[in-house]
């Protein structure tokens, strides 16, 4: 794929992102509950004061005008002030983002490294005991609610067996010694040679990452299995056998490279749904990330922050889909963007 095609394809994202911004803005503007009333709360104010607040916040302007102000600010990453934190929304989000990204990546890695080999094995050993167990397991994986599965894991590994910590991202004594460089705790602790802190962070992240990654693992395994079954029937697999190649090469190179095309596409899109899962999993495991922040903000009606976070989620989702398209062409030489 050429660079110009890539740029062209990126430009095509602009209208999509604009659409996203309109929807986010309108949704928040139409949400019941007047922000001014919420800010006033129980305090006694005169109608004139209320009117002035509204004017100061720009809420007396027409919606279209308000949208363009919102868009202009959003492009400069200015989402206003978080009512609750009394700091710029963007600062609060940036502070929380690395923890969420770290957790999401971990969940993704766990999902990919378990789902793909399991899916391939299930396809190769079709209708075997292993295949049946994997099928039931993946059905459970998709259907188990994350909060419930997370709590089960906590009860088993943290409470009963006392192997892993219950909540948080890292123990306090380690948290203070690791200097933030990349803001990813696992990486920061490693490059600073603080292995105790690394182990501690790993112990903290493992349960939430498994919980978050479970539905994705289940779906990817099904997709991989189905794709492999189809690919293994293809003529080019027979031809590869006729060439006298060994089974491993036929399976992992000839078959998997084709089977990965749907798998990777689904994986990239599922990563978007991990963002939604974050809110639940971070709440269950007390993970100091964006998801929990959003949940807390919804409860206290911290609209600017919720708005910014929803926009961020939507943009991320669009970009992930774009990435899925790119990956699709890399894996499938027949498709040109």
């Amino acid at each position: 794929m050429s660079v110009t095609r890539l740029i062209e394809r990126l430009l095509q994202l602009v209208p999509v992102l604009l659409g996203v911004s309109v929807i986010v803005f309108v949704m928040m503007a139409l949400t019941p509950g007047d922000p001014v009333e919420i800010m006033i709360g129980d305090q006694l104010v005169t109608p004139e004061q209320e009117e002035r607040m509204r004017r100061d916040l720009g809420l007396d302007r027409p919606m279209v005008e308000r949208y363009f102000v919102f868009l202009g600010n959003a492009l400069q990453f200015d989402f206003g002030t978080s009512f609750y934190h009394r700091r710029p929304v963007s600062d609060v989000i940036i502070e929380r983002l690395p923890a969420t990204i770290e957790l999401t990546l971990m969940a993704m890695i766990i999902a990919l490294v378990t789902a793909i080999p399991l899916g391939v094995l299930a396809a190769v050993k079709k209708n075997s005991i292993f295949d049946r167990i994997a099928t039931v397991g993946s059905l459970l994986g998709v259907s188990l609610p994350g909060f419930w599965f997370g709590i089960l894991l906590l009860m088993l590994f943290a409470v009963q067996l006392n192997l892993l910590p219950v909540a948080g991202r890292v123990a306090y004594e380690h948290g203070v010694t690791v200097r933030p460089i990349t803001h990813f705790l696992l990486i920061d602790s490693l490059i600073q040679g603080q292995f105790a802190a690394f182990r501690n962070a790993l112990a903290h992240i493992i349960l939430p990452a498994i919980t978050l990654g479970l539905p994705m693992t289940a779906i990817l395994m099904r997709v991989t299995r189905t794709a492999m079954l189809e690919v293994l029937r293809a003529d080019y697999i027979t031809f590869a056998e006729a060439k006298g190649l060994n089974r491993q090469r036929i399976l992992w190179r000839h078959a998997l490279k084709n089977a990965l095309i749907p798998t990777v596409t689904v994986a990239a899109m599922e990563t978007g749904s991990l963002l939604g899962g974050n809110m639940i999993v971070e709440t269950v495991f007390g993970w100091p990330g964006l998801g929990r922040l959003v949940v807390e903000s919804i409860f206290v009606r911290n609209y600017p922050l919720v708005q910014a976070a929803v926009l961020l989620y939507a943009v991320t989702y669009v970009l992930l889909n774009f990435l899925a398209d790119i990956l699709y062409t890399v894996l499938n030489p027949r498709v040109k963007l």
Partner: protein
Amino acid sequence: MSRPLLQVRGLRTVFDTRAGRVCAVDGVDVTVEPGECLGVVGESGSGKSVTFASVMGLIRPPGRIEAGEILFDGVDLRQLSRRQMQAVRGRDIAMTMQDALTALNPALTVGTQIAEMLEAHDDELPRGGPARARAIRARAVEMLGLVGIPSPDDRLKQYPHEFSGGMRQRIMIAIALASKPRLLIADEPTTALDVTIQAQVLELIDDIRARLGMSVVLITHDLGVVAQHCDRVIVMYAGQVVEEGPTAAVIGSPRHPYTRGLLASIPRPALRGQPIRPIEGQVPELIDLPPQCRFHARCPEAGPDCLRPIEMRRVGPGRQVRCIRTPAEAGP
């Protein structure tokens, strides 16, 4: 007389299906001499492809080889381990498939698909390192050149879909021939191609056969192709060989009613104006066939005496027919 390169005796390959046991190949004997080109003719479902898939050890469940010997250069391939068979496939016996578009892996470059064949089988390559990579590349270029791909050097990194149908067929042949096999099984090599390209591909196979001295099995349903390119021919029907002999003799004076039917159903310029006579009826279901002549239901000459097992009988030098209407050892 030299030992045949391939000798298949009493091969029976069955597929267990829900409807019953399909006996796709039932007691087939095939011999391929060194350097010869054997044509295998028959309709779809006659068992010609399954026979040679059995030879290659490519029958997958629910199919299995139930009986028979497959002697390649005197070694029974059925007795080999999976690993040993892997070494035979590609190195000693290579195969091309009907449609190169589906037989070439769409996700791997043509260069990779040739190189891996060489990796797997070529012992003359340098042991390792860049010398090996260079040698493999050189051989891949040589093979593509051999089958007539222009500027092969540049095309190694292209994917199958970037080639035309005829080119793809050539590439598949190049891959099959990369390890200089002693036997090439070409399964319908021209069916998916235009007529002009067909001729080119067949000439290519002839040419390389002469140069490398290998044997070729040409599986086809086109008797015209057989007439032009094959030394001998076997005609298959419903999982059995029904006629076998030198091409000229079989086509010149077919003995089995089925072979005659096949020949009559080919449009030929010499017979312009006369209607083409297709064979009436259809190939029987291969499930639970009664022990009788399988062509019986479609045969214009069938009688009550055909309702018993019919054996192959010699009807001339190198000629055998599975029909009781043909007098044994008659004619030239």
